[in-house]
């Protein structure tokens, strides 16, 4: 008979069987047996994992998200019960909205204490259910192998998402006969719907007869690892393609069919052309309100084709004429095979005039200003140029995110980590930490002074791990995006958006992280060069014009073609 092991050791073996290498976590009372097992599995001849001790459980989930986004693997977080568990919920919700595969393992009080309001007891499964792909309470050690395998299977397959495992303390210490399990089937869950040949044929017919086709590329292409299939599809039928914020690196920035970013602060031409195209082909994107503006007037003239792996996205926000419900790795090649080679150069050329308008009115003044304080656009552009478009972009949320996503360039797939759906301030710094454990490429993290301070405690993690995050803090002493809206829509009443900042140089010193400030335009290029040449972490603080506005902009609820180039 095999030796019995504890539920905690079973967790170690189950994680190892799933190929886990890196765990982001924080110990506490109800997860101590697991941490005791982890002690053996992070050193010596049993070593299987690196455990990254974060400084706050929210950061553990964002780090797992950053790791997952860049690596394509499932990100893993281990925390304790109660506050440890509830602190992860922002990251769980973030991962749900942005389809990011993570598994959160939280301690829980022993089953005998459940429902007694025991110390650090919270109904985690109850609160996590509506914001996770699956939540499950492990009540006995015998369940560990099955539950962990099922968790990883559900997190990474189909439309990926977060899974929460609530691990009762008795199950962590009970003994079990270790039996490895490999879940690759759940009868009630169909991760990869079968391709409907008739739908593909109907879609191909619409595209073949289109005069002004426009593709909208979302993160689904990255999640389905279908970047090459996308290129073949676009190139064969000569279709211009806009990308959502999360889909930016699904198609290289310099691809001739790339016509820019969609959405409220995306590119001018593609937003206007959504109202002119005759066939709109959405690929792995979900018609977020930040993309469509007023949905009642959105692309009404166009036939809409929607390719998505998730049937519940079809007709959710925009009515579809043809829905192709399948993994785009399968549906795109099937569709491409039925397409005629085509030439839409005239249609594509019609974007140019609008592009030029945006370049003159918005882009040039943003990235090559000649006077006044520094602007966010020029900081992003300088970093992008100097990193030879090779870096992974991580952003926080707000103006920093909009400028960064607009002006960064993408040559490699899976090169962007940003909180698109939930818009989580504080996401950037921990997500960047996670990203550094998934790649050897430069990781450049753009943050505002607001978002930087929301997870600033993670400087401790960066210090301890020497995580090579290039932190670019674009400091305008404002919660800039809200300030911009107050100026535009709330009669310039700046209600609690001005913020007093600490001395970041002293903070950097406290964490022993190299730091440089730039206030003068002439020093920017050299400072960026020095940052990128420095091994390990670095903080570059840029003093930004206080009322720098993100443009262009479609005001919330307005039509996409109401996009403004100036205020």
């Amino acid at each position, binding site marked *: 008979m095999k030796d019995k092991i504890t539920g905690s050791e079973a967790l170690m073996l189950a994680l190892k069987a799933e190929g886990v290498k890196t765990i982001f976590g924080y110990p506490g009372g109800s997860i101590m047996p697991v941490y005791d097992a982890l002690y053996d599995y992070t050193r010596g001849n049993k070593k299987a994992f690196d455990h990254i001790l974060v400084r706050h459980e929210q950061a553990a989930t964002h780090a797992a998200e950053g790791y997952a986004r860049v690596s394509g693997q499932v990100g893993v977080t281990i925390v304790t019960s109660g506050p440890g568990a509830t602190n992860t919920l922002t990251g769980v919700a973030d991962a749900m909205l942005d389809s990011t595969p993570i598994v959160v393992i939280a301690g829980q009080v022993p089953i005998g204490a459940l429902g007694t309001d025991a110390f650090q007891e919270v109904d985690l499964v*109850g609160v996590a*259910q*509506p914001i996770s792909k699956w939540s499950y309470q492990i009540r006995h050690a015998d369940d560990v192998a099955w539950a962990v395998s099922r968790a990883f299977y*559900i997190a990474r397959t189909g439309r990926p998402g977060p899974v929460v495992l609530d691990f009762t303390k008795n199950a962590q210490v009970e003994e079990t006969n270790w039996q490895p399990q490999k879940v690759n*089937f759940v*009868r009630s869950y*169909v991760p990869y719907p079968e391709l409907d040949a008739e739908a593909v044929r109907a879609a191909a017919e619409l595209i073949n007869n289109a005069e002004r086709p426009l593709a909208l590329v979302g993160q689904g292409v990255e999640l389905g690892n279908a970047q090459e299939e996308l290129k073949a599809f676009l190139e064969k039928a000569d279709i211009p393609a806009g990308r959502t914020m999360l889909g930016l690196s699904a198609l290289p920035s310099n691809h001739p069919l790339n016509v820019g970013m969609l959405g409220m602060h995306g590119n001018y031409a593609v937003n206007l052309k959504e109202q002119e195209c005759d066939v709109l082909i959405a690929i792995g994107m979900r018609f977020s309100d930040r993309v469509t503006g007023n949905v009642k007037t959105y692309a009404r003239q166009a036939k809409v084709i929607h390719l998505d792996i998730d*049937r519940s996205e079809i*007709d959710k926000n925009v009515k579809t004429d043809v829905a192709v419900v399948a993994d785009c790795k399968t549906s795109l090649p099937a569709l491409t095979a039925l397409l005629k080679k085509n030439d839409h150069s005239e249609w594509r050329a019609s974007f140019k005039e609008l592009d030029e308008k945006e370049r003159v009115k918005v882009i040039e003044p943003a990235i090559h200003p000649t006077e006044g304080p520094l602007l966010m656009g020029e900081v992003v552009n300088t970093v992008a140029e100097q990193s030879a478009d090779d870096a992974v972009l991580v952003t926080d949320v707000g103006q920093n995110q909009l400028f960064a996503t607009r002006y960064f360039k993408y040559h490699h797939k899976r090169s962007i980590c940003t909180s698109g759906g939930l818009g989580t301030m504080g996401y950037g710094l921990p997500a960047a930490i996670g990203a550094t454990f998934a790649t050897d490429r430069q990781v450049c993290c753009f943050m505002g002074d607001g978002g930087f301070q929301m997870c600033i405690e993670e400087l401790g993690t960066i210090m301890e791990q020497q995580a090579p995050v290039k932190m670019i803090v674009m400091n305008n002493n404002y919660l800039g995006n809200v300030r911009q809206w107050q100026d535009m829509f709330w009669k310039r009443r700046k209600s609690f958006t001005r913020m007093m900042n600490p001395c970041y140089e002293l903070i950097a010193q406290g964490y022993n992280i190299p730091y440089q400030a730039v206030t003068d335009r002439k020093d920017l290029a050299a400072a960026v060069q020095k940052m990128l040449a420095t091994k390990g972490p670095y903080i570059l603080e840029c003093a930004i014009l206080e009322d720098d506005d993100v443009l262009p902009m479609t005001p919330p609820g307005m039509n996409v073609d109401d996009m403004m180039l100036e205020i």
Partner: protein
Amino acid sequence: MEEKKLYTLLVYSENVAGILNQVTAVFTRRQVNIESLNVSASSIPGVHKYTITAWSDEDQIVKITRQIEKKIDVVKANYFTDDQLFIRETGLYKLATDKVLENPEISRTVRRYEASITEVNPTYTIVMKHGVTEQIIDLYRALDAYGCVLQYTRSGRIAVTRGKQEQVSEFLEEREKGLRDKG
């Protein structure tokens, strides 16, 4: 705005804890009230059947159905209008026996509505009626007019489909044949 109708959702799920919460949360998030809800074991071992009615327009009920079916342990969810279903509900009426004996019209009314008297004692008389919502409510109104009703309750709806809809057991058989999804 599309017209609102009473829709019936038939949901089949694995028999695991917490599904009811997940199903009802889909309605709550969209501010749609559940009119009635019945949950019981189905004819398939290990599979539970939910019969849920709600007033909604078709757009909304399609979205609700898909969001419910998206839950990992939900096997199938479909929505129906009344003409597609064979529907039953049960009404229970507790009447004051002295009033029933006093007024023979009460017994006649019970018979006219094809309801049955299932228990009688000197204090109360239990009447039971199977039917659709309107019939059960009509009987209540008729009995109430005699001032004899002590208590009244109406069950949630149960229903089976009239047409040849996709059978859940067939779906599960198909699934089990594959026994593996890529990934």
